[in-house]
Structures are given as C-alpha cells and as structure tokens.
C-alpha cells in the first residue's frame, strides 16, 4: 500500500527531458548573469571530431579533443581553475563561430580573447608564440626554440606543444619535425594532417 502510493507519487513528479533541459539552460543563463559561473563550456562538431570549448571571464581557456576524454578535461578544469563549471554554450558562441569559419576555410586567424591560465613558464611562452606562425605555414620544433630565444630547448618546445591547452586556436599543429613529418599531436596524427591539409600546408 505504502509502496504503491509512493510509486504513484514518483511517477507523478517525474520531469520529462525537455523540462530538465529548459531548467539547465535557465541555470546557465542565471549563473552567467550573476557572475557565478567560472567555467562555461560547450561542444562543437568539426571535421576532426567533437571539440570541447571552455571559457572563463577572461577568454577561451581550453579546447579539447574527444580522445582526451571530456569528463577528464572537465575534472581538470574544476581542479585547476574552478569547480563552478556548467555547460553554457552562450559564452562560447563567438569561439564556436570562429572555429566553424576556420574549418569552412573562411577564417585564417582567430580573433578571440585567450586565457592561458592552464599553462605557465616556458610552455606558455612557446604557446603564445605559436599564433605568429602564419596560416598555411609550418615551423620545426628547432625553429620555434630559436624563435623564443632558447635554441637548445627543442625537447621542451615539443612538451609545450603537447600540453597546449588551446589546440586548433593556438596552432601547435603548425609545428612539425625538421624532416617535415607531422610529429605527435593531442588530437592524434590524423587530426594534425587534416588541419595541415585544410590550410594547404601539407
């Protein structure tokens, strides 16, 4: 008897997916308006698979490939930036549009505020240099090391590219081996070749 009435009550109050989706979206809007959302994220579909985009108040803070595991990426953001993380595509509108345009070959330069708070020191110095490599061009790890004033740090440049928190937008894919072969990439070697081919650099 108790069980039957309680089950009826559960069934009665169960929301449908649309109700919940509407409330989640309202929460994201409210949290953005009140300034309580530290990390907003969205996912976008691209020729190199789904990408997760995350932004703080300061700008785009993370671009991640699906193979990195979106849940793991969100946990890292929660640990290193803030646990106030919500799916809030509104804050990623411009970034998503520019990425669309890039893959449609209608954009060669990203014009977005970037938040480099996930990297520091030499790695960040290297990552900040990468947008200077023009669309459709490549540099070797060695040339990048020289460009940032540390010609012996070829290996460290490799690490800086491998730990780039903003792939695609910060073009670590334009850094290749001295023999011209693509080298490693967070999105996998095929993704790197896809990007270089798109730009006409491979």
């Amino acid at each position, binding site marked *: *008897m*108790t069980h039957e*009435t*309680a089950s*009826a*009550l*559960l069934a*009665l*109050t*169960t*929301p449908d997916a649309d*109700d*919940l989706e509407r*409330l*989640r979206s*309202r*929460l994201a809007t*409210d*949290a953005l308006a*009140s300034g*309580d*959302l530290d*990390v907003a*994220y969205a996912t976008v579909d691209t020729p190199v698979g789904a990408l997760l985009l995350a932004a703080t108040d300061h700008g785009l803070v993370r671009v991640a490939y699906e193979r990195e595991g979106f849940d793991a990426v*969100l*946990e890292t*953001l*929660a*640990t290193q930036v*803030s*646990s*106030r*993380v*919500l*799916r809030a595509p509104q804050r990623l509108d411009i970034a998503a549009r520019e990425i669309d345009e890039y893959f449609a070959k209608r954009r060669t330069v990203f014009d977005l505020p970037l938040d480099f708070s996930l990297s520091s020191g030499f790695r960040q110095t290297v990552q900040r240099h990468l947008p200077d490599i023009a669309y459709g061009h490549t540099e070797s790890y060695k040339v990048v090391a020289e460009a940032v004033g540390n010609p012996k740090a070829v290996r460290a440049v490799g690490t800086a590219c491998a730990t780039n928190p903003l792939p695609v937008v910060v073009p670590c894919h334009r850094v290749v081996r001295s023999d011209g072969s693509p080298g490693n990439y967070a999105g996998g070697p095929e993704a790197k070749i896809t990007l270089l081919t798109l730009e006409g650099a491979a």
Partner: protein
Amino acid sequence: MKTTTPFEQVVAEHGATILRVCRAVLGPGADADDAWSETFLAALKAWPEQNRIANVEAWLVTIAHRKAIDITRARARHAVPVAEVPDEVTTRGVPGAHDQDLWDAVARLPDKQRHAVAYHHVAGLPHAQIAEILGGTAESARRAAADGIKNLRRSLDAERVHEEGASR
C-alpha cells in the same frame, strides 16, 4: 579537502530528483521551477567552498527546502483575495484526471507530512536526515511520512469510490 567535482556533474546527477522534490512540495508549476533554479544557483555559488559532502542529495534537498519555504511565503504575501471562486475546470473523464487528483491530495497534506513524504519517498533520504531538515526527531519525521502516505492513499481511494459510484 575542498570538492573538485565539476558542478555540471551535480546538476546531471541530482537535477531530476530535486525537481521531483520541488514539485511534490510546491506543485507542478512555475513555483517548482523557481525553487529548482534558486536551489541550484545557490548551490553553484557555495560549491567550491564545500568540503567533500558525504551526501550531496541531502545537502541539495536542505537548500531546496529553504527555497520552497521562501517561495511559499512570498506567494502568501502577494496572494490577491478573490471575491468569488471561479468554477473549476472539470478533470473528470479526461486522461490525467487521476494525476490531478493525486496532485490535489498532495497539496492538501499538512506541510510537515508533505515535506516528509517528498524527502523520504521522492528523494529517498533517511528519516534521521529529514529530522535535521525539518527539526524534531527521526521518529516524528518517520511518523509524518507514514501519515502523509496514509492520507494520500485515503484521498485516492475516496476519489476512486466517488468515480465508480458516478460511472454506474
């Protein structure tokens, strides 16, 4: 140790249950939506300051309880007295009529019973936890939940008898 779970995960895991609770307490309309929104916004604000919470659902229900009370009080303050009660739209014979009967029965429960039923039978919290939210002892929370279910059962049976009598 501060919590490092992305808040989105909290919403994904507990969003549906908290909405059920808000609806059981406030009915299935805009008030429940408001209580849900205010609960999760307050929880988001407080989230990074929380030490690892043993029972996140109980923590959220505690916030939702306070938000629902605020909303009920605000509604009472702004209620406009009507001179004549408008005719109720009949729900007899339409699909979902039983749903309306059950909603009405839940709304008629005394506050403590409705809260205890919502937090125990909808959210699944133990009586001791509910006692912390409502005040009083675990035993009184258990009794309120049991009385609430008994009252709901009685209302539903009465409706059923009424309907069977009417359809004859």
